[in-house]
């Protein structure tokens, strides 16, 4: 019954989103840490494939009947392995920028932009989860 409560509505999807943004944050901060490390190549997690996997999982849960509760089974992507207690991520090197003379290819600006986007998405996911929890609390206490 408790598990059913946490598997209802958007909560499981939001949980996956928060896990993904957390993994991506780790990758992006690692890029910044290696900013002046020769031969380092910037890494990133593919947002599009994560979103496609999440969309597919939500579609599967709906199953044509418009069901909005039950656990989400997200299929693994090339970089992301969805476990019950989190996501294991293997970030790929990205080859988007010309190499600097030290064979390092980090665009600091692009990396900072991704970091800002990721932080905002993470905050939004956490805020939405907080809202859902306050709804559950309200239901438990039977008063707002």
């Amino acid at each position, binding site marked *: 019954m408790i598990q059913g409560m946490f598997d209802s509505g958007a909560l499981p999807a939001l949980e996956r989103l928060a896990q993904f943004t957390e993994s991506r944050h780790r990758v992006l901060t690692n890029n910044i840490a290696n900013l002046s490390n020769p031969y380092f190549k910037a890494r990133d997690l593919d947002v599009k494939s994560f979103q496609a996997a999440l969309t597919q999982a939500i579609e599967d849960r709906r199953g044509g009947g418009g069901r909005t509760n039950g656990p989400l089974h997200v299929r693994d992507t090339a970089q992301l392995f969805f476990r019950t207690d989190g996501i294991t991520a293997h970030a790929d090197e990205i080859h*988007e*920028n010309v190499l600097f003379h030290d064979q390092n290819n980090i*665009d600091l*600006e*692009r990396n900072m*932009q991704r970091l*800002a*986007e990721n932080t*905002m998405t993470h*905050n*939004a996911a956490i*805020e*939405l989860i*907080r*809202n859902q929890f306050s709804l559950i609390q309200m239901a438990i206490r039977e008063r707002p």
Partner: protein
Amino acid sequence: MFNSLDISTSGLIAQRTRLEVTSANLANRYSITDAQGNYSPFRRRMAILSTGDPSTGSSEGVHVRTIEQDQSDFRKVYEPGHRFADKDGNVNYPNIDPAMEMINALDASRAYEANITATEATKAMIQSSLRLLA
């Protein structure tokens, strides 16, 4: 939703590259030999900017298409005793005018700041719409 951030970031990268080119020009104002030590005065470099951003595949934004060399005449300095002096006693120095480079540096850094301001505005907009949602 994050599209305008992509545009501002492409502007940041382009202006930073421009500033790097300008810095290289200023640093090489007296470079008259190449890396191998052969007589070949440094030519002024220019970053050529184009619309569109290949790194995101978008037609919006800006990118540095190429870095070209300025083909204008070298600065001649009369130094008869110099080992690279020509028959008139002149040595070719790079065609770099520090005043011009300083103006370009100032312009690039102002443009960079403008893109930062646009980014901050976009971020504030996104955050306030997220507050509306959550």
